[in-house]
């Protein structure tokens, strides 16, 4: 087999208090049909047998939907392939002899746990602030009692596809979580069921986002460019409008 030979420069950091450093590894005979994470699996198997510490990285479903994986590849969150999570990035987009840098999401509210693993609990706390419709199990009316315009349902769906990976934060020069927060505010704010809590939701979520230490939005648009689900930038405008209205 004539696979690719690659040089990896990987961020290694043994816990939040460690300073961290780039470490260079060679991987050989990489098949173009491998996924990026499978390529790292191969590296880790080798490191384990050599008695070295394998590279820690988050991953789970490996089909682009759970949102657990994420690394900055050659300076781009999830790599250069558009609308693709790291686990869905395949090695056919690289070529023999390439040098690839691999780093964790870098943002103050996402502290590094180890190597490429970061703590994204701040996202959960933003949802806790109001990213829901208050409807206890057992109290719901018949699903057909409130028709929803198809366009609204479709637009709500587009926003609801956010997987909470955090690439938007990693890509933003301000470390803003606006796209993540706006996606949820848009999803629920477009549906009739979401109206009663629309104002309080927008206010509470935006305030929690600020409290977590995420930066503000300056319409750079890097977030939507790297978003694996292509959450549109105009959700942020909607968030701002809802927030302003709620703050009056």
């Amino acid at each position, binding site marked *: 087999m004539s696979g690719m030979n690659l040089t990896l420069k990987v961020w290694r950091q043994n816990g939040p208090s460690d300073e961290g450093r780039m470490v260079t590894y060679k991987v050989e005979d990489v098949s173009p049909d491998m996924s990026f994470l499978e390529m790292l699996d191969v590296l880790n198997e080798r490191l384990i*047998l050599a008695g070295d510490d394998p590279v820690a990285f*988050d991953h*789970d479903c490996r089909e682009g939907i759970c949102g657990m994986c994420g690394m900055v590849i050659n300076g781009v969150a999830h790599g250069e392939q558009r609308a693709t999570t790291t686990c869905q990035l395949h090695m056919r987009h690289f070529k023999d002899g390439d040098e690839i840098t691999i780093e964790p999401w870098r943002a103050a509210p996402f502290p590094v746990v180890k190597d490429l693993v970061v703590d994204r*609990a701040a996202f959960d706390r933003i949802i806790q602030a109001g990213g829901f419709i208050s409807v206890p*199990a057992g109290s719901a009316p018949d*699903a057909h009692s409130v028709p929803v315009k198809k366009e609204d*349902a479709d637009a709500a769906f587009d926003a609801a596809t956010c*997987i909470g990976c955090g690439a938007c934060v990693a890509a933003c020069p301000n470390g803003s979580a606006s796209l993540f927060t706006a996606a949820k505010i848009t999803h629920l704010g477009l549906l009739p069921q979401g109206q009663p809590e629309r104002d309080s939701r927008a206010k509470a979520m935006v305030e929690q986002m600020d409290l977590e230490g995420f930066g503000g939005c300056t319409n750079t648009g890097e977030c939507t460019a790297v978003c694996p689900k292509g959450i549109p930038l105009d959700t942020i405008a909607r968030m701002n409008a809802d927030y302003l209205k709620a703050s009056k």
Partner: protein
Amino acid sequence: MSDQTHHYKVGEPIRDTKAPEGPIEDRWDKRRFSAKLVNPANKRKINVIVVGTGLAGGSAAATLGELGYQVKSFCYQDTPRRAHSIAAQGGINAAKNYRGDGDSVYRLFYDTVKGGDFRARESNVYRLAQVSVNIIDQAVAQGVPFAREYGGLLDTRSFGGAQVSRTFYARGQTGQQLLLGAYSALERQIAAGTVEMHTRHEMLDLVISDGRARGVIVRDMVTGEIETHLADAVVLATGGYGNVFFLSTNAKGCNTTAIWRAHQRGAMFANPCYTQIHPTCIPVSGDYQSKLTLMSESLRNDGRVWVPLAKGDARKPADIPEDERDYYLERIYPAFGNLVPRDIASRAAKNVCDEGRGVGPGGLGVYLDFADAIARLGRDAVEKKYGNLFEMYERITGENPYETPMRIYPAVHYTMGGLWVDYDLQSTIPGLFVVGEANFSDHGANRLGASALMQGLADGYFVLPTTVGDYLANVKSFGDVDPAEVEQAREAVQQKIDKLLSVNGTRTADSYHRELGKIMWDYCGMERTEESLRKALERIPELREEFWNNVKVPGDPEGLNQALERAGRVADFFDLAELMCIDALHRTESCGGHFRAESQDADGEALRDDDNFAYVAAWEWGQDGPTLHKEVLDYEYVKMTQRSYK
């Protein structure tokens, strides 16, 4: 009684599943009325542990919190929203009959019992069909953006094993949207202070005191600390065990450890051999493969499955004329065509590949062709329905399914077996409840498409919150947890971790897992024979022995150590694999996802043996081999027939 050649003993049958008597449509009402209630003031003092945050666990924890219990929720991921329910694509069944096409609670019940090849309990399945309608209401109220029609009402589609259109969907991401609904309900309860969330924690043992489940031992995966959490009841919602095959459509972290430890502590394991092999997955591309990706079964609504008529036809699909193609599902099963249930579609694919007519690398693939659908509906319409699935396929394979047919092949997807539970979803350990894929209860020997989401949410939102209350109404009589039992469980966990880290051998845990998975796929996969299963039962203990003497797990018990996590899971998979093979060997009939080559009719279809096997096989763990307890299945409503989709 003991049977050395079959590796097990036979024990007392299970006679009572606690289902109420009387007409089937009244049983769940009866149970709800007979269930004792807990005073709201007392609920605040009652603690419930829920392990796992998928559809079943997330909805259960949220609902128990809403009811006022003090809940502790655990997941191994960094947030509860990642649980693997999120990857379910196609949809969720519900007997709403919004289309007026003849659906009803009874028909969904009937289809599920038949689809399960008459190996599921009627009472449980009927209840599932009843509450299915409430699930859709609940999800819509939460803001789950199901697909809608221009009139603003919900759209539905048809799915395998059914002739009505009862599957609600949210593009190809129905699991994601339903899970995010349950997750938002859970986060609301976390904010309200009724649920305490523990992410990146893995359950490693169950604490039993005075015969009741009273807590869990978990490992904090960030610090490595072993923690004890006690409660008045424990709910396991830890999913299926398909990763015993190494390659499956499960997430990489899915494992059997929680239910296996509970099994070793006394919870019976039912029907472990019932494995669902999903017919439409992307084929394996190389030996580095780490997982398999499913292409939603909904694709079979519009895609046509075919292989070349001639063996070894290496032409490009576009160059093979119509009359040299074999649309074998349409040919063999004219009534259901491409929409036959999963087990049948999978085996048919295996058969044509075994005949040498498979396509793609290694001949392990069949075509799923959308050319007709694109010609009939237009590319835009096809893209609207399946766009994200087509993109996913192209990302993985580098091929464009709008232009060339998809290549698909069966892969392990779901496990119908799981911990045995009664009608109340309680295991054989009092106070240990099991919900979702982790239990065995509703799908018999084969699960119909779009029914996993239905079952997970039925259990979590509607069934468990009622039945667990009945158990907790007696909480005053439980007494204090015996500290010696806690110590013993902690000790067992610690010893296993120390052992894994001390072997320092020459092979990684993953390499053993791959080898175990290959044994299971080859000998206990789509087709099983006495010979293959006996071979597996020889090989598994040998490989396990080697694993414990030669595995290499680097690092320390402290801190994040992903290699250690994996090694612990692989160790449990070995033990489970053995039980699966024993179960598969003992069940000499074919049924649903369990196909014994010795038991087939003249056309090669699965042949059940109702006289001898119309029972649930519930296995009790034992140091020197398992003991089989049979729960006989009675069919009062649906007449047992040989399934036919022809």
